[in-house]
């Protein structure tokens, strides 16, 4: 199997889906001639032309609105938010229109729509190019939120998202784009939305994570093995709908759970996972559920030392796991 990067997996999924179904088209800022600021849509303009790879004005509300309208008419738009930070102007469209369309029309209308957005820090993006936005959408029924961590999952899940009949928010960690590489089959495959995956088996501490921090957890697990601490790592992959069974299974495995995400702690998705566990697996717990998350400060600092302080890393995850293991 060829080894490709996380962002190549995005491009391949888009290209193959556009070849498969002519109703699929992409729109966003600089996605056409320029091929996207991260090059995620590189080559698509040349292959599919300006009709199916549409450069839009700098108006996120319009990008979302146009995509929603087109999807209701039977098209399959993949809208790109250049940075997840800029999704705020489109919030109303996504929350009040896309997420509610099927419900308020009693199944008559629906939005087979994907909104892609690069999120997360660690790339010296400072305040407006580093935010994690999943918690702002996680409590909105009607939306699916996919947050893959590996190229294999990116490609398989993006295909599933495009083929899904309802709106999917597809959040790509931008630090992963060229950092994370992995084997991806050349033949067509999909990864089902709503299924978590055990990325490593262990029996001392369970780590539940997604996106970039998942890789920190795997790294930490690898190093801790030498200290005799065996770590079980669950990759949520999709946060809505949530794979509750997988979370409870992973909990039972060790009785000690650490939830890790880059989004800040308060109101972060880890709280939801934690509540689920204590409601359903209280008698399996051998330690209080722990969360490791970004700090509750307004935004990613521009200063490199402060950015480093803000970001999680394998070392921080390691310390948290070790504390739980010793508890």
């Amino acid at each position, binding site marked *: 199997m060829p080894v490709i990067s996380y962002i190549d997996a995005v491009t391949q999924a888009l290209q193959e889906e556009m070849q498969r179904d002519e109703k699929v088209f992409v729109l966003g800022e600089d996605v056409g001639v320029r091929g996207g600021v991260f090059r995620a849509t590189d080559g698509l303009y040349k292959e599919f032309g300006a009709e199916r790879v549409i450069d839009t004005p700098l108006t996120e509300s319009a990008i979302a609105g146009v995509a929603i309208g087109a999807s209701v008419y039977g098209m399959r738009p993949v809208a790109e938010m250049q940075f997840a930070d800029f999704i705020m102007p489109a919030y109303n469209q996504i929350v009040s229109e896309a997420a509610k369309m099927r419900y308020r029309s009693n199944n008559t209308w629906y939005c087979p729509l994907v909104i892609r957005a690069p999120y997360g820090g660690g790339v010296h993006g400072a305040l407006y190019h580093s935010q994690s936005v999943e918690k702002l959408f996680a409590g909105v029924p009607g939306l699916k939120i996919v947050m893959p961590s590996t190229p294999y999952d990116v490609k398989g899940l993006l295909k599933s998202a495009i083929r899904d009949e309802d709106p999917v928010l597809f959040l790509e960690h931008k630090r992963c784009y060229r950092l994370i590489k992995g084997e991806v089959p050349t033949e067509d495959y999909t990864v089902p939305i709503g299924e978590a995956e055990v990325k490593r088996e262990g*029996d001392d501490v369970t780590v539940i994570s997604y996106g970039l921090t998942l890789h920190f957890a795997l790294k930490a697990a690898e190093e801790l093995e030498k200290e*005799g601490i065996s770590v079980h790592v669950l990759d949520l992959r999709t946060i809505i709908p949530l794979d509750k069974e997988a979370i409870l299974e992973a909990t039972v495995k060790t*009785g*000690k759970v650490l939830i890790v995400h880059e989004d800040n702690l308060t109101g972060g998705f880890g709280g939801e996972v934690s509540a689920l566990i204590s409601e359903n697996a*209280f*008698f*399996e717990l*051998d330690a209080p559920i722990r969360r490791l998350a970004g700090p509750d400060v307004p935004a990613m600092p521009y200063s490199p030392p402060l950015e480093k302080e803000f970001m999680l890393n394998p070392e921080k995850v390691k310390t948290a796991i070790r504390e739980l293991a010793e*508890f």
Partner: protein
Amino acid sequence: MATDITMPQLGESVTEGTITKWIKAPGDPIAKYEPLCEVATDKVNAEVPATMSGIMKDHIASEGETVAVGETICRIDEASTEGNEPTSAVQENKATPEVKTSKEGKEENKTSAGTSEADGDRSMKRRYSPAVLQLAEENNIDLEQVDGTGRGGRITRKDIQRVIQSGGMTSPKDLSTAETSVQAPSQAQAPGLELGDKEIPLSSVRKTIAQRMVQSKHEVPHAWMMVQADVSGLVKLRQKLKDDFKQQEGINLTYMPFFVKAVVDSLKEFPKVNAVWGGDKIILKRRINISVAVATEDALYVPVIKDADEKSILGIAKAVHNLAEKTRMGKLTMEDFSDGTFTVNNTGSFGSIASQPIINQPQAAIISMESIVKQPVIKDDMIAIRDLVNLCLSLDHRILDGLVAGRFLARVKERLEAYTPESAI
């Protein structure tokens, strides 16, 4: 400085071993890894290697004595180079039983380190987590007696799991109950001896068979079904092939490989039958490893044909032959017994025409192939003489229901009936 050598753990389920022969006598020099003695455990004969160099001081256990895992069997005088720190040497040796797997060894170390460290701070000793309380209750564990390795002397879930794994509590009270339950079958019905009666002490193999049979019958709700297959084609086929086969391969062509093949192919179709009971779940096994019952004069062994689904009739025939040979020579190893997923029992070889086999735990089912008997049957409205065989299946009704088991059995029957004198093998 003399060091105690203990009975090693010679397999997952092994709890004790009988010393059959001392290889090293007191006074003999010993190099590390040299065998000290031969030990017969439940199913395997093994040698106990030395964990250190030195001189055999004395035997604590004598030949013929049965010793529990972890108990001292002999003492070795260490090579006199290191004579200092006598107390710590003894402690260290106790904490690392020799043949444990590396992981278990590590945990043991952690335990002892944790307890000594905990002497300072025991504030968390009685802070029990929900998981610990539940496990303790389910397994009748007195938490006061358990040492905690967690922070502040807290008892962790792993501490409890270790206690459960090592066979429950180590307090004298619990030990005695454990013993009576194991020996119950022999003690309960021991009638008085009359003149001329002969007493045969139980060998460790006999004891294991007794224990496993009682356990299986006691724990597993057995259901039973039987179908009859017309194997006239197979009988003719074997008749035709067997002389050439013997000449070419040097082993007899029996019906067993055909039975095993039909079972294996059908297991592929019904993964639920190739399963094991996992307490709170059913585990469908990916590999198909067939346990075959091999009888000797005084015992029954069930060695395993690994990955039987990758083998041809010839491959299975050879595997069965090899395992039977090994059994007769007493050369089966732990490896030969492990990982079976389904058992095939050839009761027909004793002339039986129907039997109710006891399930080989934790497997889901066991099949016995009975004697092939010529019988008059109605075929196409005429009386014909056909070769018939009964296939008997015992199933664990927790895992399987009659429907799936019945379909499975029907497919085994179909496969056996499909052989004709012209079939290629």
